[in-house]
């Protein structure tokens, strides 16, 4: 009898302990993150944008893509150039393509402004220098930002040779004059921000906001978004239509914004 009582007490003890532990564990486990792809999401081996400069330059004062992007992403409008925030903007030709500018360049071209944005480099220096991995290159080539992890050290700003990154020197919210879009978070004081190739739109099966509005306003093919690794994609097709250049290719960053000139 002693043996069986001992066995009974052991079993009973284990059962009570198990029941006591199971409840708090069940409380803290929760559900699971699904590994399934989001239906309808645009996927690519390597995203890229082709800008047809010939068409873009014809519309000198056009700001359709800039406005569309900055409104969609709650980008503040700060006049002070030392504090301004930009995801996509226009830069003088001589600053955009330093190597191509020379004293005998067509005067019209030299004074014009070229559309620039984050180049989503294949070899991004910003990613190399970020000490917290707040910026990294995704499998599809998008150089992504995690605002939660950014500590505001601005190494990436120093690293980026294209000026594609902006630092929030102050709370940006008072400067969002177009009305804050609650669907997209704003940023806070002390973080760096830049173009993300509209990852939130790709998820819904939409092209980036700049490309979508540009093709409506300036005609199809002015900006083209697609998978540069897919031989049948629109970007590859566009690159075959003319001579294309990239910004500061000699630095070895392998930018993925192509300019048809």
């Amino acid at each position: 009898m002693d043996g069986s009582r001992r066995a009974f007490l052991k079993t009973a003890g284990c059962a009570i302990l198990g029941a006591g532990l199971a409840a708090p564990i069940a409380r803290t486990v929760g559900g699971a993150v699904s590994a399934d792809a989001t239906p309808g999401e645009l996927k690519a081996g390597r995203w890229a944008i082709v800008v047809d400069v010939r068409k873009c330059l014809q519309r000198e004062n056009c700001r359709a893509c800039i406005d569309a992007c900055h409104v969609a992403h709650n980008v503040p409008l700060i006049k002070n150039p030392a504090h301004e925030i930009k995801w996509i903007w226009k830069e003088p030709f001589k600053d955009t393509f330093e190597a191509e500018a020379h004293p005998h360049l067509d005067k019209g071209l030299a004074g014009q402004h070229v559309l620039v944005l984050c180049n989503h480099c294949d070899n991004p220096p910003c990613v190399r220098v970020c000490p917290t991995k707040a910026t990294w290159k995704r499998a599809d080539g998008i150089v992504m930002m995690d605002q939660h992890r950014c500590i505001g050290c601005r190494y990436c700003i120093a690293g980026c040779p294209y000026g594609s990154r902006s630092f929030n020197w102050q709370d940006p919210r008072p400067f969002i004059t177009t009305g804050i879009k609650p669907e997209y978070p704003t940023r806070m004081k002390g973080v760096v921000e830049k173009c993300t190739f509209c990852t939130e739109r790709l998820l819904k099966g939409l092209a980036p906001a700049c490309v979508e509005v540009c093709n409506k306003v300036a005609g199809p093919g002015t900006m083209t978004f697609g998978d540069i690794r897919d031989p049948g994609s629109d970007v590859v097709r566009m690159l075959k239509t003319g001579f294309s250049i990239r910004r500061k290719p000699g630095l070895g960053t392998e930018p993925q914004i192509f300019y048809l000139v």
Partner: protein
Amino acid sequence: MYDTGKIMTGLAAVLVMLTLPFWYSAATGKAVEKHDPVLPKTEKKCVESRQYMRDSHMDLLNRWRDAVVREDRHTYVSQDGTRYEMSLTNTCMKCHVERAQFCDKCHTYMGESPFCWDCHLDRKGVL
């Protein structure tokens, strides 16, 4: 006992000071506001059980954040098998429309100031 009067007076004074919060609220009728978050009227069920959400919503949101931002994964399967889009603004705040009526109620009471709201907005665009 020496100095009985002084000691007893001192003890009484300390006792009154220690119990002051009770006397104060009894006398004025004012106490710290009870934290009563307003639950959405449209939905009866949250992503997980009420107890889990109370205990671990911050862990859940951290997992959602890492999955969405860093791993490009966007679907959450809850313990009862329901699938949700992982998004503070577009899933949580779809039902809990007003942050001030729900999140802030407990956070303020507990003296918590989570940094979610430095960037994220509630559906009404309230800062």
